[in-house]
């Protein structure tokens, strides 16, 4: 059966993908405390498993199959809308779309969420709010899946906000911790800031095109005034910046590590942050315009949305990598790494590397989820050991670990795979996808050498901080021997998902292997992913496709060299005695400390905020105060003196002439009031009756006029 026909027949399954986890979540939230208790995961994981099955066997594999059997030419797209409600004569719909991008995303998201949910069964086993956690994660997954299948901005926004809500709930999951509460609030408010822009963008698009649907809006964008399109794109990008934690709205993501680790893996690696990237990818026609040269003059500046995306992404990639280098909390390193990698993706999108960015989006989701879950496994183990030994240290601080490779082999090996993938070592997935982006930046249609250099430096830093993390955590001598002694590898429910994800993290880059081989002269293959997801699908909206770039072996070599040297530097500094000595000296050197302090204190972002906003405001207030006291008060005093003089004159006149008149009037009103006061009884019913009587009189007057006519 052709896949289009299948879509006709099985299209109704698509809404089930988000609906089943949502239903499970609702049941879990309502009945969790009543009778489900610790059985909630059966429900949520069951729902998620069904969703995963649907996503893989009814969506992803048929789409891939149809594309493959069609010789890689056939682009599949199916979309359906249901009328939702009528507002102002206009029908608002909700709907779903399935195309290649959706299919790939669905496959990735469902699989990861399923594995993370299984992982969480072990990780959260001892938590009192076990049931609630699973229900909320399920709702979160529903939000993400809803977002992926949405075919219009309204559905997308709803799902987007469900995710926002769930991230708030999950980050603040341990609400009894003050820091968790603050982090949740911060995440919610900061992302809301971005969403505001997104809402503006959507409203502009709706106002212009009269619809929320992607099709209609993209078609409208072809002929719409550039300013409107650019504004829409920038608005949407605001949302992306918030959700994907790009500079300057990146501040929430590291704090969000307050949530349980499965949440970190779920929200901050696999799904939620990639939603921002997905949004830009999905709305690409709005950014790209005709031939990628969409720009408009706004407030005197010529703004090209694509460039904005590229620069913000590139800057964030480098900026966050430098911060990650100096973090001591294992999860914060990963968090900043995520910010940095997302920057890569935006960079890729910004230079026209649509496919490369989507590719990196998928591979990154796998290896970052792997890393987060691995770190969770480490934290879980260390925490238990600390608890056992009654040591009250921070279980997330790498300074308290070391040498764990021996104690937790399963976690260690999977973590190693994730690290190599992230560092971009051949043949792990990160190597291919990162390479693609760098290739696009340096040789693509919108190439920019500065950004390329930034990307390469970031790649070096990535390798460095990951090797630092590895050496501090898994190698060397344990810093807390008695804790180390009692550390045990995590239970099967946690490590099994790790193994599964590790396979994907290792192999997800392989579709790009033929391209590499062909560059080396073996065969004439190309990046299979390029064929699967490409701009060709957007051709109908005026997006023109550049031919895929051939793999540049030199560049690949350079990138590998940079990664290896980054790892080498990490080994030297953190894996050898020499390095320890060097670090020791460096820490005693005030100048180096001062330099390191800058990224350590997050480039003074918080201080900057104070410096830019709070302090000037304070000064302005003092200035106003001074002006008030010195200038205005003096004037007022002068006027006051004059008034006193004048009123002395006026008093005589007042007492002798005016008062007489007033008294007469006063006596008159008092007399009237004496009669009228009987009406004011304070009783509502009296008032009502008098009111109705008055109304009757008025009506009679009116009617008489009408009747006469």
């Amino acid at each position, binding site marked *: 059966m052709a896949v289009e026909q299948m879509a006709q027949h099985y299209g109704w399954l698509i809404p089930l993908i988000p609906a089943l986890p949502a239903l499970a979540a609702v049941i879990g939230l309502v009945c969790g405390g009543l009778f489900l208790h610790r059985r909630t995961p059966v429900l949520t994981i069951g729902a998620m498993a069904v969703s995963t099955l649907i996503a893989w066997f009814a969506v992803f594999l048929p789409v891939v199959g149809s594309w493959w059997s069609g010789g890689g030419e056939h682009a599949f797209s199916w979309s359906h809308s249901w009328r939702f*409600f009528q507002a102002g004569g206009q029908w608002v719909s909700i709907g779903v779309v399935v195309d290649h991008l959706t299919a790939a995303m669905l496959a990735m998201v469902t699989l990861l969420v399923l594995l993370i949910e299984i992982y969480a069964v072990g990780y959260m086993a001892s938590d009192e709010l076990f049931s609630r956690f699973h229900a909320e994660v399920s709702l979160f997954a529903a939000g993400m899946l809803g977002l992926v299948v949405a075919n219009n901005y309204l559905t997308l926004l709803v799902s987007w906000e469900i995710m926002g809500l769930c991230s708030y709930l999950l980050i603040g999951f341990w609400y009894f911790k003050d820091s968790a509460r603050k982090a949740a609030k911060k995440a919610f408010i900061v992302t809301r800031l971005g969403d505001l822009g997104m809402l503006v963008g959507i409203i502009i698009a709706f106002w212009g095109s009269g619809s929320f649907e992607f099709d209609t809006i993209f078609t409208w964008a072809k002929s719409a005034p550039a300013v409107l399109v650019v504004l829409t794109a920038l608005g949407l990008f605001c949302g992306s910046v918030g959700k994907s934690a790009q500079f300057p709205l990146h501040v929430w993501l590291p704090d969000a590590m307050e949530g349980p680790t499965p949440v970190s893996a779920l929200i901050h690696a696999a799904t939620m942050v990639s939603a921002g990237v997905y949004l830009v990818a999905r709305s690409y026609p709005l950014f790209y315009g005709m031939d990628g040269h969409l720009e408009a003059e706004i407030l005197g500046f010529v703004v090209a949305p694509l460039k904005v995306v590229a620069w913000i992404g590139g800057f964030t990639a480098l900026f966050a990598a430098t911060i990650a280098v100096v973090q001591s909390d294992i999860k914060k390193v990963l968090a900043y790494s995520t910010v940095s990698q997302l920057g890569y993706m935006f960079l890729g999108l910004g230079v026209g590397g649509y496919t490369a960015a989507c590719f990196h989006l998928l591979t990154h989701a796998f290896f970052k989820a792997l890393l987060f879950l691995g770190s969770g496994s480490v934290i879980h183990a260390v925490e238990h050991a600390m608890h056992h030994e009654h040591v009250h240290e921070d279980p997330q601080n790498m300074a308290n670990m070391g040498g764990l490779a021996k104690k937790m082999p399963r976690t260690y090996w999977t973590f190693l795979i994730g690290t190599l993938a992230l560092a971009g070592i051949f043949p792990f997935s990160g190597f291919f996808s990162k390479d693609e982006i760098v290739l696009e930046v340096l040789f693509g249609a919108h190439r920019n050498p500065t950004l390329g250099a930034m990307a390469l430096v970031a790649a070096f830093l990535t390798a460095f901080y990951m090797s630092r993390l590895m050496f501090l955590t898994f190698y060397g001598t344990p810093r807390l021997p008695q804790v180390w002694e009692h550390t045990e590898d995590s239970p099967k429910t946690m490590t099994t998902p790790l193994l599964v994800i590790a396979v994907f993290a290792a192999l997800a880059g392989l579709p790009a292997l033929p391209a590499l081989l062909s560059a080396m002269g073996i065969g004439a293959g190309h990046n299979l992913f390029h064929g699967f997801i490409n701009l060709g699908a957007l051709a109908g909206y005026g997006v023109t496709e550049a031919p895929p770039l051939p793999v540049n072996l030199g560049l690949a070599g350079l990138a590998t060299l940079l990664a290896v040297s980054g790892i080498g530097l990490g080994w030297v500094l953190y894996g050898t005695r020499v390095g320890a000595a060097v670090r020791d000296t460096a820490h005693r050197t005030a100048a180096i400390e001062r330099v390191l302090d800058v990224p350590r204190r997050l480039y003074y972002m918080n201080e900057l905020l104070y410096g830019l906003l709070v302090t000037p405001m304070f000064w302005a207030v003092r200035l106003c105060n001074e002006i008030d006291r010195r200038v205005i008060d003096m004037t007022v005093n002068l006027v006051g003196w004059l008034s006193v003089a004048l009123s002395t004159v006026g008093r005589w006149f007042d007492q002798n002439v005016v008062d007489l008149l007033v008294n007469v009037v006063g006596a008159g009103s008092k007399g009237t009031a004496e009669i009228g006061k009987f009406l004011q009884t304070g009783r509502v019913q009296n008032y009502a*009756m008098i009111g109705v009587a008055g109304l009757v009189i008025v009506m009679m007057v009116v*009617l008489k006029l009408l009747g006469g006519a």
Partner: protein
Amino acid sequence: MAGHGPGPVFWLLAAVLIASALGVVTLRNMVHSALCLAVTLLMAGGLYLNMGADLLAGFQVLIYVGAVVTLVLVAIMLIAKIADRDLSQTQARGGWAAAVSIIVWLLLSWVLAHGTWTPNAALTEGGADAARQAKALSLALLDPYLLPFEVASLLLLVALMGAVVLAQHTALAERSDIKAALKEGEQRDA
């Protein structure tokens, strides 16, 4: 409906309706008054039936008689000293109120008598089929009037919560866990 006059059923319903409505506003015993209200509302339901608005009649009985009057009766019994006979209520401003009310009635009737109402032929000739009425009403509720429908449900929800809060405020304060939480908060503040 047109041309036939209202028919005897109407007059029967109307007579009972007016009599029981007068009972509602004049009887001294609150429970009797409430029972009269039930009769009035039932008669109004009968009038709807007579006009072919079956579905509405059902709602009228279900919600008004089944719920509102029950609520009123329960409230009366809660308020009245239980099982004590002191349920009488008194009137005030009788004369003035009667005058105003009668004038209002006359005025409304005058307006009605002088208004021009153009009947809709589709309704008066072929529209009396109750089955189609019910279907049409349902479709109207879920299609063009969906928004007001939803707003009404929201209103009910808010009213429900409001009623609970108003009536239960003391019970909330008596709950031990809330008490403990309040105490804890005070201690923390202090």
